[in-house]
């Protein structure tokens, strides 16, 4: 049985939404006896930037949903999910290491490879 799962999140949705679908989907794993590790890579590292919340606003009189992915990631971390961000992808996108959501850990290529090797299953989002 696949108990240890690594979820690779490669990119946030372009459209604003209440929650990033990949992060939201992974939150369900907590209740299903799956040891989940979340790895943000490529454009997915944007989800780990602290202060990246979308405030409630409106467009042409229609309310746009707020988004608090940082809060969602903190929720996962507090629930015991390891949340990592690809250090190389951070550098490529010019994101400073100290600009991350609290609790998100940076991993280099070797550490990422080790995470993947230990997994029973890897899902890409």
């Amino acid at each position, binding site marked *: *049985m*696949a*108990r240890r*799962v690594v979820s*690779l999140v*490669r*990119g946030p949705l372009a459209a604003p939404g209440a929650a990033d*679908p990949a992060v*939201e*989907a992974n*939150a*369900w*794993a907590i*209740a*299903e*006896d*799956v040891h989940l590790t979340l790895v943000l890579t*490529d*454009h997915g590292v944007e989800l780990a930037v602290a202060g990246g919340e979308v405030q409630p606003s409106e467009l042409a009189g229609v309310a746009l949903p707020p988004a608090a992915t940082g809060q969602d990631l903190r929720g996962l971390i507090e629930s015991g999910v390891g949340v990592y961000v690809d250090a190389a992808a951070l550098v490529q996108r010019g994101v400073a290491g100290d600009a991350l959501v609290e609790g998100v850990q940076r991993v280099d290529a070797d550490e990422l490879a080790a995470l993947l090797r230990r997994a*029973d*299953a*890897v*899902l*890409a*989002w």
Partner: protein
Amino acid sequence: MKRVALVLTGSASAERNATACKLAERMLARGHRVAVFAHRDATALSAGDGEVARAIRALVRRGVHGGALDWVVDADAAARLGVADRQVPGVVPGDHADLWAFVREADIVLGSGGR
């Protein structure tokens, strides 16, 4: 007999999802049990009356014997795409609890997602 979980996502190219479906067919033919979870845009694969939907309908029908195939779509995603009530017979609306149950119970997990 292996239990295989197949995760279809909207971020996959049409070719990836087609390959994944053909793989499901091959595994069924070899006597393995296959559980498919489709979310995001992939919920549209099994909707309507197009060629892909008809092929999935035939695949689901084939998997009825012996209970070897489960095909679940994320109901919320299907509703957002307007395809919730257009799913082919045998496709079951579900949520991400189903996804993780499939993953947890599988011997092999395959995904068509990622960019």
